[in-house]
């Protein structure tokens, strides 16, 4: 199976959804988010890691996540993000949209 490059190959908005999903696991910094997405997708989803940052800014602007400076395990200053209640709501909405989309796509793919 080939690798899927995030941002360029996925449907728009998917990266946002993935970020929100990973943040349900707690406060994470950018690098950890990228790592986690890669791990959870069993290395299929390769985040072009830089693309994460525009997404994080966008999400923060929308009030879905909140960034906060803290100290990383290796004792360095890092920005940790957490999900806000609105972000959780948004995630649920995205999940539902995603479910419908994949269902629709699966239907189309199944009938041909």
């Amino acid at each position, binding site marked *: 199976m080939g690798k899927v490059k995030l941002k360029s190959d996925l449907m728009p908005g998917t990266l946002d959804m993935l970020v929100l999903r990973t943040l349900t696991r707690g406060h994470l*910094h*950018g*690098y950890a988010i*990228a790592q986690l997405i890669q791990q959870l997708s069993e290395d299929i989803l390769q985040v*072009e*890691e*830089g*693309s994460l*940052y*525009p997404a*994080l*800014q*966008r999400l*923060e*602007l*929308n*009030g879905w996540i909140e960034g906060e*400076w803290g100290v*990383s395990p*290796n004792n*360095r*200053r*890092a*920005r940790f993000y957490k999900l806000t209640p*609105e972000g959780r709501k948004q995630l649920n909405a995205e999940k539902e949209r995603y479910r419908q989309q994949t269902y629709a796509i699966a239907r189309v793919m199944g009938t041909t």
Partner: protein
Amino acid sequence: MNSIVQRLNRRMRYFLHRRERQRLLEEEMKFHIESAMADLKEQGMPEADARSAARRKFGNVSQKSEESRAAWISLWMHDAAQDACYALRTLKRDFGFAAFVILTIGLGIGASTTVFSVVRAVLLRPLPFAEPSRLVWIANTDVDDEGLSGQTVPVGHFLDLRSQNQSFSDVAAYSPFYRSGDNKLTGDGEPFRLTSVAVSDNFFSILGVKPLLGKTFTAADCQFKWNAPKVVLLSYGLWKHRFDSDRRVIGRPLKLNDTPVTIIGVMPPTFDFATVFAPASPVDLFLPYPLTEEANNRGNELAMLGRLKPGATLQSARAEMHVLGPRIQRREPDRNFRPIVSNLADHVSERLRPAVLVLAFAVSVVMLIVCANLSNLLLARMATRQKEMTIRASLGARRLRLIRQTLTESIVLSSCGATIGLVLAVVGTQAITHLTTLDIPLLAGVRVDFDALAFTAAIAILTGLIFGLIPALQVPVAALQDSLKSTGRGSSPNKSQAWIRSSLVVSEIAFACVLLAGSGLLIRSFARLLDAKIGFQPENATALRVDPSSRYSDRAQRIAYYNEVLGSVRAVPGIEAAGLTDVLPLGGDRTWAAMAKGRTYTKNHPPPWAFVRIASDGYLKAMGISLLEGRDFTERDGTPGKPVIIINETLARTLWPGQKAIGQVLVGAGYVDREVIGVVSDVRHLALEQASGCEMYLPIRQSNDYSAVDLVFRSALPSAELAVPLRSALTAIDPTLPANDFQPIQQMVDKAISPRRYVVFMLTGFSGFALVLAALGIYGVIQYSVTQRTQEIGIRMALGASAAGVQASILRQTLALAAVGMAVGLFASWGFSRTISSLLFNVAADDPMTFLGTIVILAAVAALAGYLPARRASRIDPIMALRVG
């Protein structure tokens, strides 16, 4: 909604701290890359490889940071710029449309900004004094007449109030009984007439005005014998023009009215007495007012202002005056003192407030019509752009994005219009400030300043939003229509859109109706005023100031001077009549009590107060005042001689109702009994709008109680032709006589009606503009509906409808629209006309003629606007129409 506000808020915050955020973002990214590198190194990769691998995996750092920043700042700005460029491109393609819209908005905004500047200068901007909100006007209500004598107080009352009150930190006064050109300046250069105002010593300090040079008056300066001040202050204008801005004028002696005075100071250019207290007659000099017992005998001569103490309010001051007034009056029971305190700014703008508010209202209505009209136009344009919108929607433009695009377009249009409007406003405000003859306070302060700019910007955006909103909301509707398939014609007309367009036109007609009715009422008032019986004939009458010089110290000498003046002026060929007076119409308003001899008057039955004129023989004829009964003065009505008097109809009726006034004796005028020898028609002395009240004329040869003398002559010859012979006739008598002001009486009348003339002028302009816009609106809507119905009309005609029938049906449709608009409009005007009733003169607020005229004009304009499309419709070739369908 809340989240939008929050997001906007965050965006603002991010934008404001963009430097800091940028730095932090870079730090965050750096941390990411370094963490990745550390992990790779742990897995055994050499450092250099780990670094490049981490970088590769991250991607282009600067591009990512750019993209990240876009999230908080530039995305929407970028879009807006893109939209604006797109709008400009579209508009360039559609130049005629754009030009029309921009011009319409330009005119509207030009008018709005001009009126805004006037409103701001006259009503909103604080007076140009220190802490102006603490300044109050203290008016007296001595008698129930509207003359200045009723509002002013004698020196004694002023001094008592100043020393006894608890409410004011200070009370100052000036004498409003001055006339333009009261003083004669002689000495260096040509003799020159100057206008001066006498003020109390603290007048400038209470206003917080400091002199530009020298000092202002002291209490000692206000102690001198009547009419002999020793010091003067120059206005900035006089200093600049007459003294060439010479800083060494302080201490220089001058000869004022043949008496030596010393210049002690020059006022700053920012201090313009006239513009606040006495519009349309600039003041050149300030003199001290004698605060003496002698001056007290002259009666009510001072207008007062006060400055509220810290803690005192208008209410508390009023309460105190209520008590203090009568207590002060007790010293001089004959001189009523009932002070009324009002805010100085309110006092100054009071007279103009209704007119200015009406203009503001009118201009807002014009703007609404502009918006309705352009909305309609854009709607029509939107219909032709349906395909474009559909294509853009199908290419992925979201609904909001398209709405924003169309709104940007309308805002771009209105901003272009605003630029033109601003130019017009600058021209307009400059024209207004240069109208020095306009009797409106604070007008000199009208200008396009920063606030006016802000106002223009705000109104441009608001206008763009208002007129763009309805068309913009049509976007999804338009896009949803399957218009890609259609050829643009023959698709069924959009019902809701037709409805919106009709309502817009109806509202335009209604607004235009309100404006037409309002300006109609004012125009009729103006016409009535011009026709009003003012009691004198201004045309062909001219006044010239001929005060006797102080060399003529006694009455006999002065009378000899008058005889000579009258004799030599009457000898000039072309002069029909000439006479002397101390007060010209629309000028002074000094009143004295007038009593019929033999009748007793009490506090409850007070005598009437009559305006006093000191006049010579020939004055009535020269001014064109008709003698109803009895005779004019003659040269023999002097001293010795029987004291005589001429009174006006109103005074005759008041004193001797139902009796013959000639031969009766009047007491009170100059403390002697005078026999009435003549009755003349009433003269509108106060204002053209106001009835005259009582008046009496005393022979100049029997009185000393006047401070000015005007020669009035009547001649059909132009004054330019008369100037030379007249001047030479007068120079022979008095070589120092300044002859710089021949004042046509007609000009004085014009000045008196100038504010009304300008209100009428502006309002007429507004309603004309509104009418044109409404006509265009009607035309547009009917034309559109004809285009939409081409096929239908073709079928009807094929089935036998006549061209005339088609025309009539379309005209009916037009008039139906107009009728609805007028019905709404008349109802609104009915309410509006009540609010302007204070501006009307001899015209009822529900004047049927005006309303009828409004209906006729609007119906005619609507019919005309509907006729052109109707004619086009009747010429539709049924075969062509059907074939194309």
